């Protein structure tokens, strides 16, 4: 259960087409992440699948059944919102039980399921509290609890972690991944954070201006970005993109090299530059290196303890086997 197919789905608001006709298949049990810069249409796409927006044309099928005109309530999907969207006037217990109540389950069955979900999500002690009395992480867990009790065909997550602080975000990321491992239910997750996308996804869908730029596993996208946009978007820190002479030497319009595929050296190498900012993270050091004739600094990863500082001379040697080449249209060669 939980195979979702989008067939030439298009969405326009008035004259503005936010999603040009788009095809996508999400397989049963997959963890799919929609990622892209803000305004790329990823949330709109999720809302189209949820039924919270109507498609302008095209078809959405859930488990083979045409769901294009079904109201959200009838699509057997559960959604976790960025703002949590808990019912502030209900206790945690009633929040989680709400979809069950709407489904017409009797009180005993509701209680059993709510308590099951609460114990999985460590919410048992908070069942009688209201959302206002919970922390951000707890609220997010209640929102997830409300989604899992329904045993939906698929879960939809709309940037669920962006209101949490950094430490909590990492923790919740793991919890959601574990939940997926345990439930094996299809999950569609929207985020603008490519780290979330890389760490959680089975399959990443990179979107730009409503268009799918590339679909693939995190490592496929990392190793073989289909175009310059995906190359620049996936990976942290960003891939260095170089135009001009250096690219022409390698028969390309643009070449890309990731910070981790450049070897820095104080004495010898292919390119010579000066160290700008050095970010010491302990495990790694990132140098922002200024090369002559290049405006943007190159980002280079070095080992944990390298004694090069601002203004020092530095030599860079790219790993030629890890170079990405792109043509004038920005497509991978």
């Amino acid at each position: 259960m939980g195979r979702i197919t989008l067939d030439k789905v298009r969405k326009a608001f008035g004259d503005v087409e936010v999603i040009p006709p788009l095809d996508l298949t999400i397989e049963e049990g997959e963890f799919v992440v929609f990622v892209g810069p803000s305004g790329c249409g990823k949330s709109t796409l999720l809302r189209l699948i949820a039924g919270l927006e109507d498609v302008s044309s095209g078809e959405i099928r859930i488990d083979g059944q045409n769901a294009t005109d079904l109201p959200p309530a009838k699509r057997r999907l559960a959604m976790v919102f960025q703002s949590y969207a808990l019912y502030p006037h209900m206790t945690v217990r009633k929040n989680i039980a709400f979809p069950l109540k709407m489904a017409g389950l009797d009180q005993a069955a509701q209680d059993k399921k709510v308590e099951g979900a609460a114990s999985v999500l460590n919410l048992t002690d908070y069942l009688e509290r209201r959302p206002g009395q919970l922390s951000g992480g707890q609220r997010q867990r209640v929102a997830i609890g409300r989604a899992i009790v329904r045993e939906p065909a698929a879960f939809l997550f709309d940037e669920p972690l962006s209101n949490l602080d950094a430490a909590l975000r990492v923790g919740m990321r793991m919890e959601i991944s574990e939940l997926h491992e345990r439930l094996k239910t299809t999950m569609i997750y929207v985020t603008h954070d490519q780290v979330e996308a890389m760490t959680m996804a089975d399959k990443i869908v990179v979107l730009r201006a409503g268009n799918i730029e590339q679909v693939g596993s995190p490592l496929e996208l990392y190793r073989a970005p289909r175009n310059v946009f995906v190359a620049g978007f996936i990976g942290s820190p960003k891939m260095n993109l170089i135009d001009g002479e250096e690219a022409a030497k390698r028969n390309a319009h643009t070449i890309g090299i990731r910070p981790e595929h450049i070897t820095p050296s104080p004495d010898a190498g292919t390119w010579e530059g000066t160290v700008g900012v050095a970010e010491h993270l302990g495990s790694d050091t990132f140098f922002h290196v200024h090369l002559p004739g290049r405006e943007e600094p190159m980002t280079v990863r070095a080992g944990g303890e390298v004694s090069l500082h601002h203004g020092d001379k530095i030599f860079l040697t790219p790993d030629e086997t890890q170079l990405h080449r792109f043509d004038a249209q920005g497509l991978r060669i």
Partner: protein
Amino acid sequence: MARAITPQRKALNTAIAWTFGIMIFFPILWTVLTSFKTEAQAIADPPVFLFFNWTTENYTTVLERSNYFRHFWNSVVISVGSTVLGLIIAVPAAWAMAFVPGKRTKDVLMWMLSTKMLPPVGVLVPIYLIFRDIGLLDTKTGLVIVLTLINLPIIVWMLYTYFKEIPVDILEAARMDGASLRNEVTYVLLPMAVPGIASTMLLNIILAWNEAFWTLNLTAAKAAPLTAFIASYSSPEGLFYAKLSAASTMAIAPILIMGWFSQKQLVRGLTFGAVK
């Protein structure tokens, strides 16, 4: 940064506030005092303030001469009835305008409000004739209908403002959770809007209770509410100020008491959303 307020400044502010407060309250206080005077004291020149022979004779006379409780009951039915009927119509209207606005929603809202700018007397004759023809003159039903229509724009506007404060996400979450439209409104929207709905209700009960133009013009004896009861003591020849005051006091007392007990709710409702 907190502003420094000198004690003198504070005393001055307090004095100004009290002056305005007393000015606003004075007519009501004077009416209540007059209701305990004799007719002669009521028109005495110079007027007597507190030192007169207090008497409850006016109240006895008023209660003997007219059926206060029937008027009171009519007022209750008309104000509560029109408010409840208004809410039944306004909740779906405000829901639609707040959550599924169209291109012309703002215009519709303005148009609704503009009907409040029309002098009611302009439509008195047509409404009177319609009511006469369909037999609604001097009936509580007729007044409930008229007052509902009169106050509907205000009810819709107030509810619209409160509904706008409710995050759409929460209603969408309810939709995703399998709630039908009716369940979404019953279990999620209305409970969250309770403070707003309560103050809308209170304000409209007060407005309908005090409404005099339509209640006086469309009733004779049967459906006359307390406004008509007061009016029956103001006659052009030979004014009976003390009895008029007694009738007024009795008419405003219930709503004054209700307002007193619900003032917290009223203020909270009227400033709802102003401060998060």
